[in-house]
């Protein structure tokens, strides 16, 4: 093509700056797109957080409400008729042994299904026996039943009911039965001890024959639930828990108990 054929057009900007302008525009467009995507991503994250929070709150809320309404049994159990409460327990639901007018009171919170309570009985039982045979210290056995899920037969509850059945037979019989229950404690995740075994242990401890029907009929069942709830309401969080004159001990070794008792006596 000859130069003469070139149409008369306004002068073009030189190629370099044209390309630059295009690049700048593309970059601006790409930046806008990136910003847009970023905003979309942020929106997506926010929506996820919101949805997640709502679902978690609603899910937990509904479940807790449903579970709470299932607890009505337990609240009913709080109004246990007097006939369903063992006559021998004190206001805390504890069986009282040892000194009648004590200078120091030891309260032992246990569950017959609790393996650490069994260890506690092995390690500190003789110290408690010593105190019980003296006349300064009172030992209150506040047994609760919160480990029913550890056996397929609600052993915690049945054992506590059985313990209440043996109470009328007197302190010596009850303490023998108490010792026998821990000595024969069934393993967790098992079937617990059958009623027949509870009955024979009670009779070996010296309980009268009438104990058999009490163990099978469980007249103290509602009380076991209410006394357990009362203990948790009073600040017990697990077993064994030892109170000396109302103060919860950090540990339950004989040394710690003895130190706490001596300190209380020194006052």
């Amino acid at each position, binding site marked *: 093509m000859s130069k003469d054929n070139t149409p008369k057009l306004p002068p073009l900007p030189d190629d370099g700056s044209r390309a630059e302008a*295009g690049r700048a*525009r*593309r970059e601006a*467009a*790409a930046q806008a*797109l990136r910003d*847009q*995507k970023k905003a*979309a*991503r942020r929106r*997506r*994250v926010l929506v*996820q957080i919101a*949805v*997640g929070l709502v*679902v*978690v709150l609603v*899910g*937990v809320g509904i*479940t*807790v409400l449903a*579970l*709470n309404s*299932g*607890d009505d049994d*337990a609240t009913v159990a709080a109004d246990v008729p007097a006939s369903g409460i063992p006559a021998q327990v004190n206001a805390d639901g504890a069986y009282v042994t040892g000194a009648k007018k004590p200078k120091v009171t030891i309260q032992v919170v246990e569950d017959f299904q*609790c393996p650490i309570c069994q260890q506690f009985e092995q390690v500190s039982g003789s110290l408690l026996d010593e105190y019980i045979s003296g006349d300064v210290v009172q030992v209150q056995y506040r047994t609760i039943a*919160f*480990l*029913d*899920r*550890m056996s397929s037969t609600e052993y915690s509850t049945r054992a506590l009911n059985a313990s209440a059945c043996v109470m009328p037979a007197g302190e010596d019989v009850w303490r023998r039965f108490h010792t026998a229950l821990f000595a024969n404690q069934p393993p*967790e*995740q098992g079937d617990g001890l059958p009623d027949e075994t509870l009955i024979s242990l009670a009779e070996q401890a010296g309980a009268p024959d009438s104990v058999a029907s009490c163990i099978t009929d469980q007249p103290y069942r509602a009380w076991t639930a209410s006394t357990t*709830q009362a203990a*948790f309401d009073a600040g017990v*969080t*697990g*077993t064994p828990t030892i109170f000396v004159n109302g103060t919860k001990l950090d540990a339950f070794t004989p040394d710690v108990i003895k130190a706490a008792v001596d300190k209380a006596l020194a006052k």
Partner: protein
Amino acid sequence: MEGMTDLADPEVEADDLDLHSPPSFRAYGVALVVLGAIGLAASFTLLVDKIKLLQDPNFTPSCDINPVLSCGSVMIKPQAGVFGFPNPMLGLIGFSVIITMGVLYASGARPQRWLLGGLVAGSLAGLTFVHWLFYQSLYEIGALCPWCMVVWAVTIALSVWTVLLAGRVMRPDSTVIATLFDIRFLLIVLWYLGIGLAILVRFWDYWRTLL
């Protein structure tokens, strides 16, 4: 106008319509390192506690908090050593591999695809095992071990992420997988919620005593 043609560029437009950004391997790598490190720490603690428990049967593990939250009672159960050795040993091996792979991805390396497949297989095996342990812990043993639950949590998170990332790589056109990948955190939270609710229901008789 030239500006219009620029925006109408088919390539840009397609990209614009696709709101799902391509998965970031770097973020995945960082997640693997963090989650793997947490899992490794938990496994390590569990194994150390197990050894101490063997040396001294009266030893109380650091996480024996209350009757429900207690490693001690879980650790001594046969389920804690299904394969004839303590489970946390698997964790030590598995999470070490996860961390190594995480460092690789986080450093910008792009290993062969089949490596991602290996991670999928490994994390799914872990996920299955963790859920079996979850079932055993709740419904057979009846106690929870906090460090074990940390392992459950990280295994769930890294499995979800790994599987969805692999899905994105294998099926880049699937909008379903892309959407699932985008909401992976929500999926993980929902998974945790399911487990949390199961725990809430199972141990309600204990939790309510704390109210």
